[in-house]
């Protein structure tokens, strides 16, 4: 019986804005996250992931507002990550309307928080986020702080440990591929997905619908998180080159340029292609 895969828009947030970088760096402002989220919900998104990429304590309230506004309009699961350090941070995110939280730095620093959080909020609420970089010897290691801090943890061992500790799911990002459109790191995804019995969400590198199909069939991903492919397609069609009220590095939006490596595609187009390849997803 084939599995049913999820296609999950990933929205990186900085303050009130949706942003997108390459290798998690060099952030460009794309617009208001809620508008993107609503558009994705209406067009068949299976879940939404919000990551606070700056994780500044001073901007927490704007993240909570974004979560609450999205939860009011989109009746699909919302995962929130970035800068959640304590059980009370998790509780606050859930109260604001998140269904799941993703932990990276906090779990690396204190793995037992995964167990405590799973016990307190249920395993299925706790997503372990692994941001991996491939080393020259072929091994993958987990990083924190947008790929700047080496954790010393090998991604494979860390994924297994997190499963034992009670994580319900793994959000697996290839920093090498993130934002490049060069395709997912299929080897990494398959390595982790076959090593654990909890679902693995592949993230980082989608350049178009075919890459998404590949990471499912060859990489054994249970779900796929995508950003640029969807965001640029929405920007193309929504004619929002000068969005009202968006501050920050907006030069990119005004320039009307996309990324040549990335095929801008909507959710329906992606799911249509998957269906044509015999991959089941909700349409």
């Amino acid at each position, binding site marked *: 019986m084939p599995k049913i895969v999820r296609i999950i828009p990933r929205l990186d947030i900085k303050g009130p804005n949706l942003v997108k970088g390459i290798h998690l760096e060099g952030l460009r402002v794309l617009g208001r996250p809620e508008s993107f989220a609503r558009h994705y919900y209406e067009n068949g998104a299976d879940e939404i992931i919000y990551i606070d990429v700056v994780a500044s304590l001073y901007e927490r309230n704007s993240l909570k507002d974004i979560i609450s506004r999205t939860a009011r309009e989109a009746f699909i699961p919302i995962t929130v990550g970035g800068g959640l350090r304590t059980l009370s941070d998790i509780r606050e995110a859930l109260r604001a309307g998140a269904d799941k939280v993703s932990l990276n730095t906090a779990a690396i620093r204190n793995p037992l928080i995964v167990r405590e959080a799973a016990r307190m909020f249920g395993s299925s609420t706790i997503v372990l986020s692994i941001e991996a970089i491939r080393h020259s010897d072929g091994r993958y290691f987990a990083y924190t702080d947008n790929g700047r801090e080496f954790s010393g943890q090998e991604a494979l061992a860390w994924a297994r440990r997190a499963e034992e500790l009670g994580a319900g799911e793994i959000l697996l990002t290839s920093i090498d591929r993130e934002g490049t459109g060069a395709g997912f790191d299929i080897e990494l995804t398959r390595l982790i997905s076959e090593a654990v*019995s909890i679902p693995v969400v592949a993230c980082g590198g989608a350049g178009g619908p075919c890459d998404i199909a590949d990471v499912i069939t060859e990489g054994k991903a249970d779900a796929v998180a995508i950003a640029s492919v969807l965001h640029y397609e929405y920007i193309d069609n929504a004619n929002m080159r000068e969005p009202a009220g968006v501050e920050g590095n907006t030069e990119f939006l005004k320039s009307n340029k996309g990324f040549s490596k990335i095929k801008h595609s909507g959710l329906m187009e992606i799911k249509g292609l998957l269906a044509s390849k015999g991959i089941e997803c909700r349409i």
Partner: protein
Amino acid sequence: MQDMTASINRPKVAIVDFGLGNLFSVKLACETAGLDHEITNDRRVIERSDAMILPGVGAFGEAMATLESHGLVTCIMDFIASGRAFLGICLGMQLLMSESEEFGRHKGIGFIDGRVVRFNNLNGEELVKVPQIGWNRIFSEGQRWEETHLNGIPDGAYMYFVHSYYAIPSDPRNVLSVTDYGGRRYCSGVSKDNVTAFQFHPEKSGVQGIKIYTNWALNIKRQMEAI
């Protein structure tokens, strides 16, 4: 203080609070369906409500212990016996069964005869991911949904699931919907008298899921008018 004028004639739903989970979306789904709600574990509040939702995340044994510590097991049985509408969601469906084998053996509320077991990690040679997290289809398997809260939901509609355990009701007449996962067909919805419960999360299942809440709300309003 609640604004009483706003709630005249609007059914009031008690949403049972286990002190853990995210009830935000259950609350919003009620609002969307035109239901007033109160998140509570106070049996006096529950007793005077028009309808009741038993949600639930976390482990079966702990959830039963929480219900018992607030005197809610008998409260739930009395509420069901009164004929008022009762909706169970996810663990809230499993808790209605006689027993579960999640982390040992635990007695449930027992309104529906049957037990709760875990998905197998293997289907033959194939690795099955547990928990099941994601969208899956619900089928009527011969049940007539027209007279139920699934009225208008297409046979085979996708709903959002998050669970490692599933219920096996002893009486097939209590099975409202079935779903396939890990090589087996299992019960994803039950109904018995005024009680309906789903293994999936209607409040996370998009437009079709919200329709279930709307159907349920309509049913409550009819029930209130009939009294």
